[in-house]
């Protein structure tokens, strides 16, 4: 069809590469922070993991609020969205978007506009996996 002929091809391989590198870098950074927490502050692995997640979420939300996370996302593709950073970003960008529409009708009801599906399907798939584990693992 005509449309297909004239549609420019997306540089998918490049996008994958960028996303892979950026996502990997965030993971690496988080791992480094986790190591520091474990070795210098004597946190347990579980505690360190929690604190790292909090830091990453906090930083991502802060960057969204300061207004430059969105241009990073456009450049870095999904590398920034797939880690927890993306979840934090989707919530804080929705919050910013609807804050003028009132606390209940705006911010409240739209807070999880983008993240809602992640939460819902996250819970459902966790539930299903638990059942699978119960059946197989006993």
């Amino acid at each position: 069809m005509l449309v297909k002929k004239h549609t420019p091809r997306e540089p998918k391989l490049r996008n994958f590469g960028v996303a892979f590198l950026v996502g990997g870098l965030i993971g690496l950074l988080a791992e480094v922070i986790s190591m520091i927490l474990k070795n210098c502050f004597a946190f347990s692995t579980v505690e360190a993991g929690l604190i790292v997640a909090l830091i990453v979420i906090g930083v991502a939300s802060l960057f969204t609020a300061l207004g430059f996370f969105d241009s990073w996302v456009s450049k870095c593709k999904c590398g920034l969205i797939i880690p927890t950073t993306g979840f934090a970003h989707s919530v804080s960008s929705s919050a910013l978007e609807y804050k003028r529409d009132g606390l209940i009708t705006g911010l409240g009801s739209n807070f999880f506009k983008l993240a809602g599906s992640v939460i819902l399907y996250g819970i459902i798939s966790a539930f299903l996996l638990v059942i699978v584990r119960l059946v197989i693992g006993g």
Partner: protein
Amino acid sequence: MASFKFKNVYLNDYYTVVGPLEKNSHLRRLDLVMDDYYIGEKTFEQAEVKMQQLVIDNLIGKNNLAISDIDLLVGGDLTNQIAISNYSAKNYNIPFLGLYSACATFAESLIVASCMIDSGKIKKAISITSSHNLTAERQFRYPVEYGAPKPHTATFTTTGAVSTLLSKNYSKIRLESATIGVPVDLGVNDANNMGAAMAPAAASTIATHLAALKRDANYYDLILTGDLGCVGSEILKDYLETVYNMKLKKHLDAGCELYLDSQPTYAGGSGPACLPIVLFNKILLNKKYKKILIVATGALHSPTTVNQRGTIPSIAHAVSLEVE
């Protein structure tokens, strides 16, 4: 098919305001420029209302008119219930007709106003159109700060507002004829490729216009389509050639002409303000264009219909301008 000539309608004057990104684009003449997307207001919606008021106030002031001289205010924008136009129109004691044809609203407002002026029902009309990148993003896509990655077929909604003054009084721009388009839907359902959805509508209106008025494409010095973008323009040319056996040589697309390559606007500009801004601030400055056919194109979808996997119907309205 509705193609008709106007006897005596002139575009007396116009006034434009453009956003920060459009300031550094290919535009060669600017009336007013916004330094940011808020222009002193609290929300983007209030900012767009202010943009419309600025262009109406300045147009009336520039021509030494009083509010009571204007018989009709006609126009629209991209937001739900064309709220922006309603909220700016409420500030004037002028009879108001709100229109919606998405990005074809500019041509639609010219046609409505011109018909009423030509038939002698009213004397002076102001047409108003605006779009604001961030109100449109919010309306049709994701939250503004989300910045979701977009494909190269996507277009960038232009920030700007345009008002035009129409009457029977002689001026250098004459509205010569017009064609009201039919909605066309060839099954494109990708809201990130609106150029592809709108190209067949543009082709249909161009072909109808030329056939009804017994002209060929070379009659016009320029056929200026609204906001197909660089991808959509190529589809239009190809589609006209395959389906209507017509070669489009003197064609430009406002969306493709507006932004610099270095600006992150994907396939070019879109939005109701895109066509008039490029027409008034770039095309009309080029004296070689005497007969111009403007073909404003609009995608008539809503976020709900797209989410329900609906296809995107489109429309295009054409207005022929004669410039002295």
